[in-house]
């Protein structure tokens, strides 16, 4: 196996191939200088083909179709929901993140059932949670991370009642309450039909077609033009067979669920997801070239354990499925402590591996600093910077902050990797233009760079003194309160 083979689809596509099919008039309507530049961006998936107006004209229909095929990702992109909140899942171009970039972070759907009350009755002990509360909690889940908002994405409506009318009325209530994308879950076509009769115009994902019900589910998917999930637990032959059958039935927007098995089933689960993706990228298996659905919710139904243990197991399963190719997840827990690591890992894994997440080095000012204000230093890893920034703002200090070029690494890694050294600090101070803005020579360095303090003083020379700041920037406020202005008199 050579590296080129592993890389698969994306690497084999040359901008020239794409260019040859473009109008080649260099009309600049797409905003690029010429068609070749546009072709390069198309291949790196930075722009959609539709940004080229001439290609959409009738006479170019054939070239447009060919380009669409050429640029189609090996894992089909499927849309769930409509409008602004709709979700794109799949669309994967590579097996491994480092080869290109993973597209479309897997949305997380949280379940509600048609037997949950809309609002819990406080008199009844078995009614802990109401649907509306759950959806409110779901909508309220939000975490600010490097200037991005991390949220949950969809509601999975399950029929536990087994009654079409009950399902229908709950689906209706949910659609009236929220416009969030939906997954309708029932293996009974009559129940699914009832749900679709009220939500079918919102393009929910239908879960799921099985060995038994596939024909009826296929009819529903056609009738309502909705994407359809295939469930074939731990049976990839069945999964492929159903995919072939449903494609021939006229369905293109399929989602594959090979089953998510917690506990000792985790080996089979990861195995199936991995085999499917290898078949797509190594064998060009079109039948398996659809988004994969993982259901960590199954962790709630195995074995014993407290609520916390189950939420823990579910998060563990979710994080592993995110690492191994899931394109959509259905979960039960709404616990912040459990979901936070899952949504952060999802965000991280889907960042562009070619770009270190960094900010521009240089001098920043906070509040209204004067010549007596403190001078601090940090690295240019985006997360480090934004964290420090938010902590400085929180404590309301007026100060200067030098952002050193640590090659987009955190302070700790930069010290270990020798990107943050006495020399680079001195360089950053010199370049910052801080001289003249302050009348003291105290530099506060991060606690995690403490070991550099002596060397920095030596390298900066002159009258510079280094103060070792806190190890975590949440303590900056406290630090400045206690240590600024510095007690030790300047003695040269």
């Amino acid at each position, binding site marked *: *196996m050579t*590296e080129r083979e592993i890389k698969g689809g994306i690497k084999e596509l040359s901008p020239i191939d794409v260019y040859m099919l473009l109008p080649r008039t260099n009309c600049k309507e797409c905003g690029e200088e010429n068609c070749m530049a546009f072709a390069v961006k198309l291949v790196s998936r930075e722009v959609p083909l539709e940004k080229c107006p001439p290609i959409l004209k009738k006479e170019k229909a054939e070239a447009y179709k060919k380009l669409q095929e050429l640029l189609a990702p090996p894992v089909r992109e499927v849309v769930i929901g409509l409008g602004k909140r709709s979700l794109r899942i799949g669309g994967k171009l590579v097996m*491994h*993140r480092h080869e290109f970039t993973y597209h479309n972070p897997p949305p997380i759907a949280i379940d509600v*059932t048609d037997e949950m009350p809309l609002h819990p009755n406080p008199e009844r002990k078995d009614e802990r949670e109401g649907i509306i509360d759950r959806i409110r909690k779901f909508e309220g889940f939000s975490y600010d991370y490097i200037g991005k908002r991390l949220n949950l994405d969809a509601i999975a409506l*399950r*029929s*536990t009642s087994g009654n079409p009318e009950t399902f229908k009325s709950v689906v209706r209530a949910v659609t009236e309450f929220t416009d969030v994308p939906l997954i309708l879950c029932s*293996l009974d076509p009559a129940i699914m039909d009832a749900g679709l009769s009220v939500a079918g115009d919102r393009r929910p994902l239908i879960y799921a077609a099985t*060995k038994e019900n*596939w024909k009826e589910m*296929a009819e529903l998917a056609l009738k309502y033009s909705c994407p359809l999930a295939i469930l074939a*637990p731990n049976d*990839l*032959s*069945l*999964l*492929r*067979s*159903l*995919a072939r*059958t449903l494609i*021939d*039935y006229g369905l293109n927007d399929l989602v594959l669920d090979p089953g998510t*098995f917690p*506990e*000792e089933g*985790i*080996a*089979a689960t*990861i195995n199936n997801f*991995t*085999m499917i993706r290898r078949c797509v990228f190594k*064998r060009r298996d079109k*039948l398996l070239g659809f988004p994969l659905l993982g259901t960590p*919710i199954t962790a709630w*139904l195995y074995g014993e354990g407290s609520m*916390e243990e189950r939420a*823990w197991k579910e*998060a*563990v399963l979710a994080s*592993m499925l995110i*690492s191994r190719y899931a394109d959509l997840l259905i979960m039960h827990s709404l616990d*912040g*402590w*459990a979901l936070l*690591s*899952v949504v*952060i890992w999802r965000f*991280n894994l889907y960042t562009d591996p070619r770009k*270190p997440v960094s900010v521009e080095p240089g001098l920043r000012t906070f509040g209204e600093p004067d010549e007596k204000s403190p001078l601090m230093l940090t690295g240019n*890893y985006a*997360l480090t910077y934004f964290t420090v920034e938010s902590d400085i703002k929180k404590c309301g200090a007026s100060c200067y902050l030098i952002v050193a070029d640590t090659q987009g*690494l*955190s302070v700790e890694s930069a010290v*270990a*990797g*020798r990107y943050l050294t006495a020399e680079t600090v001195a360089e950053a101070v010199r370049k910052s233009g801080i001289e003249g803005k302050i009348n003291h020579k105290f530099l506060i360095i991060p606690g995690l760079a403490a*070991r550099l303090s002596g060397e920095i003083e030596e390298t900066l020379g002159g009258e510079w003194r280094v103060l070792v700041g806190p190890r975590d920037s*949440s303590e900056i406020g406290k630090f400045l309160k206690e240590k600024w202005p510095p007690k030790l008199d300047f003695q040269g």
Partner: protein
Amino acid sequence: MGRGEIRRRNEGSIKIGPRLLEILSQLGEIELEDVEIEVEDLEIWWQPGVGIVAPPKIVPPPRVKPTEILPEPFEVPLEEYPGRVEEVVLGATKAEGGTRAKRIVIGGAESPAFYLFERKPAHPPVIAIDTFDMKTSLPRAIRMYVEEVMEDPPAWAKMAVDKLGADLVSIHLISTDPLIRDTSPKEAAKTVEDVLQAVDVPIIVGGCGDPRKDAEVFTKVAEVAEGERLLLSSVTLDMDEAGILGRVAKAAKDHGHAVLAFSSMELNKAKELNRKLYAFLPRDSIVMDLTTAALGYGLEYSFSIHERARLAALMGDPELQHPVLSGTTNAWAAREAWLRMGPEWEPRELRGALWETITALALLLAGVDVFMMMHPDAVRTVKKVIEHFNREVKPETMVDWVSARI
């Protein structure tokens, strides 16, 4: 389609007359019995009759819908790899010149991590639990478990093995830091001896991060713990720059130990360091640390560098064919692991332990062979997952989560 079989390819089409079409459009579905159609591409289309004024409603062409599941067998996608990861032995029994109850073999991978359809891991990953030779600042979620043994390395090591099931114990000699206590190499070596006495699992010896001091300490420890097959953590290109790498590597070789080659997320640096080490040490005495960044603080870089390193090793790059170790305790560098963040994110003790767990599991799937960890729940969970992977139970049925009441 009955027993008829239709293969669709790229060319050819059947043209259907308008009358048949009319009938078809009324039926919406047709079933052909005992018909075998072998064409390159089945495309059914029609043209609306001349003279129709109003544009016809767009109706999808009638399809011949399958009535039975069309069988498509699945073949397991196996690959061959020219490369294989070295096996490294940690710890030595009496028979092998040490005093450990058993030795641990790591590495030996011949497929990407947990591609179980190809093969099981040659040796399942193992967990070392971190201990320190002095009181150090630890997040509360961890401190509550180790408070009583914090100034007592042998007791700490014993707890790690007896209570938490550590496969190995890592003892970090942070007090040797010239900026902290500047403990002498002799004293540090004594601590290592005490830990070796207290437990019978293989030991990882960590330095303070100052290359010169670490070199002195490792040289002394290597000599005192002759034959125990320690893992010295770590040797770096900084040591090479300071001209002391050879001395440490030679001490490791002379006294039968292995070294951990640390590089900071750069495969070229990792390879360069290994090349330098080959001059002093056999290949089976080198483990790599490619840097573990915490979840939320660059874990994705660690993940990708580990995936790249392992794939390159399997594809035949000899300079990367070494087992890898992750300092997973670094997960606690993330403030989300320990900070009070508001009631919706509580309890933070669980949040932190899960943080360490998920940091470990990401790297488990990227190919890490040894984890250095701390939180008991994180250790327990990762051990369980490794066990499950190793047993590889075939699930018979799936629990019906769709209609289950949770």
